[in-house]
């Protein structure tokens, strides 16, 4: 193989990549926040005593979990505007697609977490006169968060990487900048390697924090 790696332009492209990092972080934060919050309410529907709510929750999860995120993004950018009669910005369409996808997955994390808490915890709280709502809030949920922290961390990492799909809608995030620079410098291997490292550096602190949090909770309980 005669290919000579040449990383000399990396310094030059860093400012452009940095702009991409900012957009990626914005996408990540927005999709994760919306996904986790919406997913929580979807999970409540999934465990609701009312059958119609359970059905709706289930339908949401199956649709947004089983259709590729890439198709959801493209659909929200090109097809959804036809239905609502208004064009979305690429960023909004990306946030919408990735958030709903994230909501479907996190709903399942919440649901399995809620259902994994022993019945005795409900009984222990209700036996001292606590309402179902208070029991859920004070006793069940805190245990769900603890128990499901590794699963939520996985999801957060996954979402960070899924934001790269937004590049197909020309959202100027990290992946988009990488592809643009590749065709400018004709050095796609070096540039994609650099972009990969930037993703790693961006995501790793989050997994590290989560692991530290897990260790701290283990010490406590």
């Amino acid at each position, binding site marked *: 193989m005669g290919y000579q790696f040449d990383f000399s332009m990396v310094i030059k492209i860093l400012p452009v990549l940095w702009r991409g990092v900012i957009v990626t972080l914005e996408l990540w934060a927005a999709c994760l926040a919306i996904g986790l919050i919406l997913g929580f309410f979807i999970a409540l529907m999934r465990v609701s005593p009312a059958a119609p709510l359970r059905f709706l929750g289930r339908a949401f999860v199956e649709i947004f979990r089983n259709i590729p995120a890439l198709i959801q993004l493209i659909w929200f950018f090109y097809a959804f505007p036809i239905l609502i009669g208004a064009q979305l910005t690429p960023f909004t369409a990306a946030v919408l697609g990735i958030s709903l996808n994230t909501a479907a997955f996190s709903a399942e994390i919440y649901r399995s977490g809620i259902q994994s808490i*022993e019945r*005795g*915890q409900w*009984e*222990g*709280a*209700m*036996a*001292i*006169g*606590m*309402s*179902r709502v*208070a029991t859920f809030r*004070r*006793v069940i949920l*805190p*245990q769900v968060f*603890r128990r499901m922290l590794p699963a939520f961390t996985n999801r957060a990492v996954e979402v960070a990487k899924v934001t790269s799909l937004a590049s197909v809608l020309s959202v100027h995030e990290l992946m988009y900048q990488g592809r643009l620079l590749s065709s400018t410098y004709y050095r796609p291997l070096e540039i994609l390697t650099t972009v990969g490292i930037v993703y790693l550096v961006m995501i790793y602190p989050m997994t590290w924090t989560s692991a530290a949090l897990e260790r701290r909770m283990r010490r*406590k*309980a």
Partner: protein
Amino acid sequence: MNDTTPTDAPILRCEGLRKSFGNLEVLKGIDLDVKRGDRIAIIGGSGSGKSTFLRCLNFMEQPTGGKVILDGERIGTPRTGRDGSETVTYRERDLMSVRKRVGMVFQQFNLFPHMSTIENVMEGLVTVLRQSKSAARTRAAEQLDRVGLGDKLDVYPSRLSGGQQQRVAIARALAMDPEVLLFDEPTSSLDPELVGEVLRTILALAEDGRTMLLVTHELGFAYRFATHVIYLYDGVVHETGTAEQVFRNPQKEKTRAFIARSSEFSL
């Protein structure tokens, strides 16, 4: 306490209590009067319905028939159907107020693992009785001291032995100052060497005159603990009487056979 209630009126009463799970009828009509200061041991073989019966008294299970009357007041809203049959609806608010007054200690303790010992005991005081944190803390510490765990306030349940966990659970129930306290096989999941400390804690409550109902397999303990004994067989009260009567002079054959299985009463 209500001054107009005569002291011998039952604090807790049930009439014709029934409970089915699907097609399986577990309780087939149970009557019971609990007076203030009574200590009632509920004994019986596996599947006799004794735990289910106890759990109906604070509505951990909802009865499918009959009445539960707490301090003269019927729990639930009865409605008579067109065919004359009665259905009772239990609103959550009603059940919450019953559970404030009728406490329960479980076989599996059911402590909250994410809360320290004292937080476990404070929880009901703060969220249910709306006490301030500092008042709750003082009261919780008193209750834990009473069950011999005054030095474990900030320890998490996973660091305690089974016997200690059960004593925390007793303190948690006691903190609410319930008028009736229910024990559902409180020593069944404990290692044998830890049973004693829990039984001693329960006996100490008896000296305070607390009204208690206890489901247990420990017949020797039931005998020492109880003023009255109920022997359940196949979902009905088969024999009842004072502890002395039921344990020393059982009238029915099945009761006699059941009691004879325990070495302490085999003669």
